[in-house]
């Protein structure tokens, strides 16, 4: 029997802000982006704001309609990262198998020879108490025999609580829950399941496997395993690096992008960020992709395979800009993104092409490395293409350092 904990920091960003600002602790608080930059959505809210019906992802003005006294504070990601690191240090004292899921969640495998649910619960209670005392924020922890039920347990009772789901009681605790509470069951899957008459996790568990597979393909197997608690996925070692599948950055700009120059400015910033992240991890990419969201919120993605893999900023930017310009219509753009995929280690030998100028590529690579080291020492803005200066507000964001929170999809290991 495995013993797995899933720890979830309650209203993480809002809790940290409330710790640091005693004056707003008893008020409805939401951490939100900057409305002037058109990032004005609620990122998290505290329990008081939650009671007013404020929801993550809605616009600030919508939240204010429900809760006029709502205090909104800007996010402070370095502070949240520090708290995330401190929680992981505490988890690390209990297990070497700690698998983070975003900044505020983690699985811990505390299985051992003498372990049982009573001891596992005691450990969960100790962790919950320590985080509250040492960090001043609360967590809810689920204790179970697989990762899926442990996660359900941490959602079951909030805040500041421990829920134990054993092989004996899971049918009473898990099965009556709505099917959408299960990890991986999003709105589309929920709709399909509901159409089949499946509303609870118990309904799903008792649905014949053949039926699920006929509707969901191989994912039908997973759904069945998840609902029955037979998921075998292991908790990753904290030191192991999960393989990176893709590297991407996107941004919603403070004003719509109308001209070619607008797109170039933002594309340069994004290419610089993704290319630097690529080089930092000693990788090269075969595929450059772009995502486009028009100001009518219509969105689509396009990608292109390169003739040889690259990590050169200029090449990535040129391809991305070309993809943007070839695929955009007349509608101004609200948000654009660049992603690199089909990644390989940068020292992998590749077949040269007659048409590529390897000498020049080497030169550009060395130039990029030199600029990287300058930027490391003097900040991201110390060297930049001149076009950036045409609209410093448009180019004045730093996707590389501002947004380094990339929860790895749970399913990457299944694909």
């Amino acid at each position, binding site marked *: 029997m495995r013993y797995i904990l899933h720890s979830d920091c309650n209203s993480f960003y809002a809790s940290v802000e409330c710790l640091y600002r*005693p004056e707003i602790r008893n008020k409805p608080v939401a951490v939100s982006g900057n409305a002037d930059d058109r990032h004005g959505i609620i990122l998290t809210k505290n329990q008081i704001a939650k009671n007013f019906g404020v929801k993550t992802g809605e616009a600030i003005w919508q939240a204010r309609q429900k809760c006029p006294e709502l205090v909104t504070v800007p996010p402070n990601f370095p502070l949240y990262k*520090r708290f995330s690191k401190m929680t992981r240090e505490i988890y690390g004292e209990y297990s070497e198998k700690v698998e983070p899921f975003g900044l505020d969640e983690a699985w811990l495998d505390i299985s051992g020879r003498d372990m049982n649910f009573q001891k596992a619960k005691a450990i969960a209670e100790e962790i919950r108490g320590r985080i509250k005392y040492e960090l*001043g924020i609360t967590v809810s922890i689920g204790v179970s025999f697989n990762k899926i039920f442990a996660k359900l347990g941490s959602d079951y009772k909030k805040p500041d609580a421990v829920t134990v789901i054993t092989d004996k009681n899971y049918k009473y605790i898990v099965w009556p829950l709505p099917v959408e509470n299960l990890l991986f069951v999003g709105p589309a899957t929920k709709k399909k399941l509901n159409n089949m008459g499946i509303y609870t996790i118990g309904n799903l568990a008792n649905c014949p496997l053949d039926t699920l597979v006929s509707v969901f393909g191989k994912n039908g197997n997973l759904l069945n395993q998840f609902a029955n608690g037979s998921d075998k996925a292991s908790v990753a070692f904290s030191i192991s690096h999960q393989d990176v599948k893709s590297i991407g950055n996107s941004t919603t700009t403070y004003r719509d992008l109308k001209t070619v120059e607008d797109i170039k400015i933002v594309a340069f910033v994004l290419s610089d960020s993704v290319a630097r992240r690529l080089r930092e991890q000693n990788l090269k990419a075969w595929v450059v992709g772009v995502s486009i969201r028009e100001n009518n919120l219509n969105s689509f993605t396009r990608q292109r395979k390169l003739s040889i893999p690259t990590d050169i900023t200029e090449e990535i930017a040129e391809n991305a800009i070309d993809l943007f310009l070839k695929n955009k219509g007349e509608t101004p753009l609200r948000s654009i993104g660049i992603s690199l995929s089909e990644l390989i280690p940068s020292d992998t030998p590749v077949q040269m092409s007659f048409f590529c100028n390897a000498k020049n590529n080497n030169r550009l690579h060395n130039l990029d490395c030199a600029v990287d080291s300058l930027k490391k020492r003097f900040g991201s803005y110390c060297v930049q293409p001149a076009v950036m200066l045409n609209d410093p507000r448009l180019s004045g964001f730093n996707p590389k350092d501002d947004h380094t929170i990339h929860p790895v999809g749970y399913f990457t290991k299944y694909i």
Partner: protein
Amino acid sequence: MKQYVCVTAQFDCEGRIMPIKVHWEDGRTFEIDRITDIRRAASLKAGGAGIRYTCLLLGKQRYLFLEEDRWFVEI
């Protein structure tokens, strides 16, 4: 309330940091008589979290926090 303060501290060979004197904003300096406890803790009163030194200052118990690389007291 959170009050950041200047601190004179000793770094020993093991890398441990021990505060010796606290320098108040108004220029007064207080010698720490004794440290009775060191642990990680949050300060709900001041708003912060770090390593909490329980100190005796002029015979009174005071908490002194080391948060990253800054010291603060609760007032």
